[in-house]
């Protein structure tokens, strides 16, 4: 009974391709997030949705487009992949968004060659 799940776990692709990562949570939370963890293990917020509405949109290239079809799902589509996009992408969820504890998915390791 996985709380926050992501697919795929690993993604290897070539520069210029378009790819998507999917996230689902079964915790009944109303807020979901995408984080990027780079090679130095620094974890940084990218996007957040509350009740399907975008509430945090960090300065990321507009090649990254999140989409939340419902409260339990948050997907991330990346166009025209670049070498610098290689990282681990984590999805997370929380109930409310004002500093409440967030629960993370297992991560998707994206490698762009």
């Amino acid at each position, binding site marked *: 009974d996985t709380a*926050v799940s992501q697919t795929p776990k690993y993604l290897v692709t070539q520069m210029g391709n378009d790819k998507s990562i999917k996230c689902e949570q079964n915790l009944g939370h109303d807020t979901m997030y995408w984080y990027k963890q780079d090679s*130095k*293990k*620094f*974890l*940084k*917020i990218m996007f*957040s949705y509350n009740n399907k509405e975008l*509430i*945090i949109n*960090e300065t990321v290239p507009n090649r990254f487009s999140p989409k939340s079809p419902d409260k339990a799902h948050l997907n991330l589509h990346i166009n025209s992949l670049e070498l610098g996009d290689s990282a681990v992408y*984590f999805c997370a969820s929380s109930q409310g*968004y*004002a*500093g*409440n*504890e*967030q*629960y*993370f*998915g*297992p*991560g998707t390791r994206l490698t762009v060659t």
Partner: protein
Amino acid sequence: EDKVVQSPLSLVVHEGDTVTLNCSYEVTNFRSLLWYKQEKKAPTFLFMLTSSGIEKKSGRLSSILDKKELFSILNITATQTGDSAVYLCAVCGATNKLIFGTGTLLAVQP
């Protein structure tokens, strides 16, 4: 700009030792401070602190927050090899975003 600084960056101890990990922060309109443990995969939630001076405890782990001096500590007593991980501190302020520190890498040797 909101900032979180963790120290030390890395630490090597032997089983049975007690360790103290530090987290100092600067944030506008503090809401909460959270500690996570990250082994090979996802960060797992340990504690959320919102009030000064109230210790949170879970088994051998405990944490406390000082909102006047803007720091928190995470203590681990009687360390075990399974405690080896990166420990992440994060704060949330007026932006409603979790700002993470770079983490402390703890290695517990048998």
